[in-house]
């Protein structure tokens, strides 16, 4: 478990104190995929680097598995870092070393295994990330997605309990992003690894995370399960991220709504409710008519969800609302 207790970080730039992270408390349970989303400069990168103390906190305590990371001496910190893997936006592979040697590096630095044991471990890791046939190549000969796979294999080499991902997919195209995220989800599931990732894309959060914290100007402004935060965003920053992901333009939407009569509601279905034939049933029973203004059916990690914006006219509107509320859906009246 990773726990932040009133942790804050201030940089001193040109004689001025610039707060990067205001006092923040946070808990990441074991085996979770925890996402931090925010725009650049929101403090998410600082927060991530505080976990393995690439950044030293200005105050507060960071407890990992019962130990206070902020109190570690240099030696202890090194041993701790060997138990925390990290992958980077720009991969940070050594251009002078082969793929196999890059993956072996953390093991060589730790100096605990024989060369033979290291080679064997490297082969296993490369097989896991699907790069066995590229072992002898240099990073420059690989595609971006392959480079990040090498980064992941390298981060896993010391069998860490925690994996930190610093914008791991931001330099990749959408297809490669999907496959790298799939690999991360797989690792999380099979190795029971706790993953903390930072991103500026809601899509990344939606695909792999269990919990999400939204950051803005050095504060965590909203936090909860991904479904909760994604489907019912409260803070303006969160709403913006969700709209970006759904490619909704608020002004366009307002224009669209102006043209339709009746009431406008947004229904959110989750899990099995997504597949229930609710709209037809309610329309028949209450005599209302509906037209779909916007809709989306997708998945949050493994759970399907649907979100429909409807215009409702005629019939017994109040009865329809009651039916929606009684069913296993979340209803929001927009107008």
């Amino acid at each position, binding site marked *: 478990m990773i726990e932040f207790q009133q942790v804050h970080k201030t940089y001193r730039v040109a004689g001025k104190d610039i707060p990067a992270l205001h006092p923040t408390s946070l808990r990441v349970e074991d085996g979770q995929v925890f996402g931090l989303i925010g725009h650049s400069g929101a403090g998410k990168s600082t927060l991530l680097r505080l976990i393995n103390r690439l950044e030293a906190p200005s105050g507060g305590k960071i407890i990992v598995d019962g130990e206070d990371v902020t109190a570690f001496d240099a030696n202890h910190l090194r041993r701790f870092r060997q138990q925390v893997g990290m992958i980077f936006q*720009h991969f940070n592979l050594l251009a002078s070393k082969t793929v196999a040697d890059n993956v072996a590096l953390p093991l060589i630095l730790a100096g605990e295994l024989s060369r033979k044991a290291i080679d064997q471990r490297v082969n296993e890791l490369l097989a896991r990330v699907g790069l066995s046939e590229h072992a002898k190549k240099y990073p420059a000969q690989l595609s971006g997605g392959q480079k990040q796979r090498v980064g992941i294999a390298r981060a896993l080499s010391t069998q860490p309990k925690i994996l930190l991902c610093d914008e791991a997919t931001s330099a990749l195209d959408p297809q490669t992003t999907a496959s790298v995220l799939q690999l991360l989800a797989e690792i999380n599931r099979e190795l029971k690894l706790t993953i903390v990732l930072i991103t500026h894309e809601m899509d990344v959060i939606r695909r792999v995370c269990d919990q999400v914290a939204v950051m803005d100007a050095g504060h965590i402004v909203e936090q909860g399960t991904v479904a909760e935060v994604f489907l019912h965003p409260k803070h303006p920053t969160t709403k913006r991220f969700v709209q970006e992901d759904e490619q909704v333009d608020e002004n366009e939407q307002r224009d669209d709504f102006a043209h339709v009569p009746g009431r406008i509601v947004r229904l959110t279905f989750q899990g099995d409710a997504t597949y229930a034939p609710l709209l037809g049933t309610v329309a028949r029973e209450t005599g209302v008519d509906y037209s779909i203004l916007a809709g989306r059916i997708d998945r949050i990690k493994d759970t399907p969800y649907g979100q429909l914006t409807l215009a409702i006219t005629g019939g017994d509107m109040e009865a329809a609302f009651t039916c929606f509320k009684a069913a296993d859906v979340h209803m929001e009246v927009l107008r």
Partner: protein
Amino acid sequence: MDLSYFANVDWAEIWLATVDTMIMLGGSLFFTVLLGLPLGVLLFLCGPRQLFEQKGVYALLSLVVNILRSLPFIILLIVMIPITVLITGTSLGVAGAIPPLVVGATPFFARLVETALREVDRGIIEATQSMGATTRQIITNALLPEARPGIFAAITVTAITLVSYTAMAGVVGAGGLGDLAIRFGYQRFQTDVMIVTVVLLLILVQVLQSVGDKLVVHFSRK
């Protein structure tokens, strides 16, 4: 080839001078790299926003390096005489030339090493830190391998600079091709000797540059 055009050229002498140049070059390059590499690493580490940022140490090292670099080599050769005697027992000949050559080239080489290390992506240092590496491990396992192409380029440039420095070593009677060119080609107007030595020096520089370039390409892995 009709050698009568080169009536003044004593080929045995040319051969001896070539050997002297090679010994001076090899010896001084060896010690320059031996001393300059750690000095370059130290400069890099103490530099602004680096692992061991030490403003005072960096300023002092920088000052010494700059003073030595701004001193004309011919002056250094003379100023160094007492120290050279202390180290090699003589201030004359090839042995007398190597200490000033090393002192002249080391600061230059150290600066080039510092620059090559600065070219290494900071992300590489961060990644290695995140693996729990010690500073020593970061230097030997990440920084130096990553900077290898730049360091080979620095060795090449330094070797070529040393070739031109050896030409002045005649002042302390070190011999070599440059000395031959000055004593016979310039002072006795033996143009043929001048041409032969210059051509040989040119070939030497060309060979050094192309070998250096090949090493840089080989280690670039790009």
